[in-house]
């Protein structure tokens, strides 16, 4: 019997899952790049990022050159949680095909 409760509820939301996936592909992402890639509103993206940051999954780096820039990266905890989430998803899909 599958235990759907194993799925991390913080990640198991389409918007946050998309953010986590993109963050897993590169060392860091600028806010504007995430926004344009995911086609989310500023408010929506900020809310999801704040949730992930509060959960300890995402690290925030703020730099100022000619303009302020905020970059996001997966933390070790976030990367581990994402890998666990993927593993559970694969188990669910495999179980469904049996």
């Amino acid at each position: 019997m599958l235990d759907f409760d194993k799925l991390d509820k913080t990640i198991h939301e389409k918007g946050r899952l998309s953010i986590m996936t993109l963050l897993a592909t590169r060392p860091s992402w600028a806010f504007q790049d995430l926004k344009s890639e995911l086609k989310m509103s500023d408010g929506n993206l900020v809310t999801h990022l704040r949730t992930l940051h509060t959960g300890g999954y995402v690290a925030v780096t703020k730099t100022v050159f000619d303009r302020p820039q905020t970059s996001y990266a997966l933390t070790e905890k976030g990367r581990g949680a994402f890998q666990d989430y993927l593993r559970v998803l694969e188990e669910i899909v495999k179980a469904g095909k049996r």
Partner: protein
Amino acid sequence: MRRECFVVQSTCMNEQERAEEHLRTIRRLMERGTIYRAISAPTALVGGLLSVGASEMWLGGGGATSENPRGFLALWMAVLALTAATNAVILVLGARERKEAVISASMKAALIAIAPAFIAAGGFTLLFAGWPCDPLNELTVTVVWAVCYGLGLLATSHFAPRSLTMLGAAFLAAGLGTMLAFQYGGGFFMRNLDGRTASFFMAGTFGLFHFIYAVCAWPRRRGEPEP
């Protein structure tokens, strides 16, 4: 009892469908998120400057009238070597700044994608070295370079930024367009073909196209709201 089983089965199916949908989303975003710029904007600028400079040197130095195909090749091989060295330095510095491995999986994928077209270009270049020196042969080899370069860049399109794909398409179009113009241009292009044509073609493609790419792809910093 039956209704409960139906509800449990329905919940499982929904969760499985959702899991599959999420895995598809993850795969699509992973593919889109992985971008590798095989040619940086500064490299393109250096390549463009060197190409225009080499064309000018060949035209101004009387090379265009000399019967020296190896001189023409040597000049452009030097441009290629300098541009490739610049690209290597920029890639190494960029990787160090981002604290990544220089020879990353993305770089390997880019090299594998580009290699066939570049090997083909190298083969044609060796062939050209044995041909008699005339303007048509010089133009032919430069058109082959442009076509192969364009094909090489287009081969990276599934993980390259759009600007690099556009650059590849521009080279391919310029090369094929020039070939077709000379074949079906009613003799106009053939009549005007001389020792300068290949150099003009190189300046217009490897020079101008790289300048345009450098301007479009130059890194910009943008402001954004903070969460």
